């Protein structure tokens, strides 16, 4: 089982990094030939970067749209961030003070995340227009995340796993000094689901994570009259232009 999980996590990491890398490379390579910021938009590139940052951190547009949905999204994403911060201690030794201090918040974060996910799932099943746009993969994604959160929360709160052993396993993976993974069915479930999430990440709607940084309606400055913007492929039309 240890070998299986070791192979799985190496594979998942490679797929995640390479898959995301290829996607980001595509977004970088393909030009945005026209200025299409959704206006009113910041007039400077710095302002546009701040606009993207607001989308990433406080979900500004979603807040404009729907306060309930925003609250659910915040519960899930902020909860997830707290959980991820908490998990840092399983991957580094010694554990920085700030990570240690964050541990209890990570536990609340986990509960917040699971609650948010259940609300998002309920919304998909109950609201007719949202049910219409929901596909099988949208439900599976929520179920997957609930599975990860649920199995994790169970291990933290009820069926404790040998966390020292888990940490040794992952530190071993990272230093190529392989260690045994504690034999614990709940842990297996948790890790298998995490690996699944890593594997589907670059091929699914989770691409909204890199996507938001490349969204031209958000990351472009409104300076079309001041600066000429020309895509490389559009340069061919320059040749037949009348000159004064």
């Amino acid at each position, binding site marked *: 089982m240890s070998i299986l999980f070791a192979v799985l996590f190496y594979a998942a990491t490679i797929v995640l990094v390479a898959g995301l890398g290829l996607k980001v490379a595509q977004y970088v390579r393909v030009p945005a030939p*026209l*200025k299409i910021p959704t*206006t009113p*938009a910041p007039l400077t590139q710095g302002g546009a970067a701040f606009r993207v940052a607001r989308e990433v951190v406080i979900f500004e*547009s979603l807040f404009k749209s729907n306060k309930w949905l925003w609250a659910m999204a915040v519960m899930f994403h902020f909860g997830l961030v707290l959980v991820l911060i908490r998990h840092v201690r399983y991957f580094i030794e010694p554990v920085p003070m700030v990570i240690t201090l964050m541990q209890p918040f990570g536990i609340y974060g986990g509960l917040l995340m699971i609650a948010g996910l259940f609300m998002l799932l309920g919304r998909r099943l109950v609201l007719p*227009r949202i049910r219409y*746009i929901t596909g099988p993969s949208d439900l599976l994604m929520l179920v997957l995340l609930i599975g990860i959160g649920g199995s994790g929360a169970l291990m933290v709160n009820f069926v404790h796993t040998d966390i020292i052993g888990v940490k040794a396993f992952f530190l071993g993976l990272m230093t190529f000094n392989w260690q045994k993974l504690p034999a614990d069915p709940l842990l297996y479930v948790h890790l298998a689901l995490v690996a699944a999430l890593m594997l589907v990440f670059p091929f699914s709607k989770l691409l909204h994570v890199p996507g938001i940084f490349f969204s031209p309606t958000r990351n472009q400055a409104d300076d079309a009259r001041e600066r000429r*913007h020309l895509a490389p492929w559009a340069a061919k039309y320059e040749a037949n232009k009348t000159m004064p």
Partner: protein
Amino acid sequence: MADFEIPVLNEIPVVPAPKPGATAHLKSFPAAKQHQEPLGYPGELVDNWQTKAIEVMGELLGKYRSLPVFLDSCVKCGSCADKCHYFLGTGDPKNMPVARQDLFRSVYRKHFTPAGKLLGDLVGAREMTRELLDDWYNYFHQCSQCRRCSVFCPYGIDTAEISMAAREIMDRIGLGQKYCNEIIGKVYSVGNNLGLPLKALNNTLEGLEEDIEEDTGHAIKFPVDVHGAEVLLVTPSADFFAEPHIDGLIGYGKVFHQAGISWTLSSKATEAANFAMFIGSYENMVKISRRIRDAAIELGVKRIVFGECGHAWRVAYSFLNTLAGPWDFLDPRYPVPQHICEFSNDLIKRGAVRLDKSANDHMTLTFHDSCNVARGSRMGNFEGGQLVIPRELIKASCGKFVDMHPDTIGEKSFCCGGGGGLLTDDLMELRVKGAQPRMEALKQVVQNDGVTHMASICAICKAQFTKVLPYYGMEMGMIVSVHQLVSNAILLGSND
């Protein structure tokens, strides 16, 4: 009056329950051979249209970053679902922006993503069938590319970009839309959207000059092809004869006259509109935009000013520098191009043009922010100037002004229902139903605040409202041009 049900105007907006297929029957007339070919598109659906469509999709994915980013990033959160006026007015779920995008996204997933190739239905991947192509045609011509959805999308996904790409693909496989493509053809063959020949235009303008002189005692001129004029005015051809557009044109003429700034129209560019944006064709956008460059060079003008037109201003403000620039041969003290509202407002603020608001005392105004101006462009030198400057201009011309509900103006403005290449009689049912959210907000200020008129700075909005207001029991004359108000209030003659 109509063979369809006119939507109810509610006190408090209601999001309809999805009614699948509610607008499946609304199909604007497809382009015939003679509309397709002048634009460089095949005259009819090509034999290998499926292969060709996928090929063009692949090409566009490599040219427009917005496409892969928007197609990959959507999480189906539904934030946009209740933001489209066509969904709100018709209830057809395929008019929810996310569902409209999914018509495109499903083919993208099938052909351009590993997950779609492998898992198909499970991840919403679908083959480009004839049935799906028909849905594309119908529903990508039920999007006015107003960008309201993009305001509310947490990733900024703009359905307009998707519908432009879809129309480009359909054009390239021979399934264009008659309305847009016929109009672009007229721009190429006659010079403007309306197919108004130069002779007719000159006659109209002469008649206009006579009428105004009779009315005001002032010789306001509407010059064409005057070499060495300071300003080239490019305005939608509807301004030359449609109501209330022409009252706006009269306003521009009076402002130029009173400010003592020489100006001219160009017989080469008698049209500000650029319908190539609606069909997502960069190449045709370049071609149409270059007429303006050519006219400016030929006439030796120093500035370019655009008249009241929504999408034309988006193309002008956001794209003209890209498509037909650089403009370094024009006077560098002014932005290129300028909007007539920026131009007039500036003159009024400096006291170069003076107004007497009492001329508009019989009206209480509200302002309809046109989508392409509000969400796709700017005026002035500050963020949001496109929302502020027209209002300043109205308030300078008219004592009584009331804004509609804040969720229906500014960046959240509702489309008139006729933008994006849908202002055609064969889509009248869609136009009427799509106007419902705007009509609802208008009715509210009419009842609560005594609003009598709604001003707009878009030729399409003006034409659309003139047509749909009566369906909702309101007067078509309620819709006015912003420069019509300026025209009423302007003090002609000595500025002392």
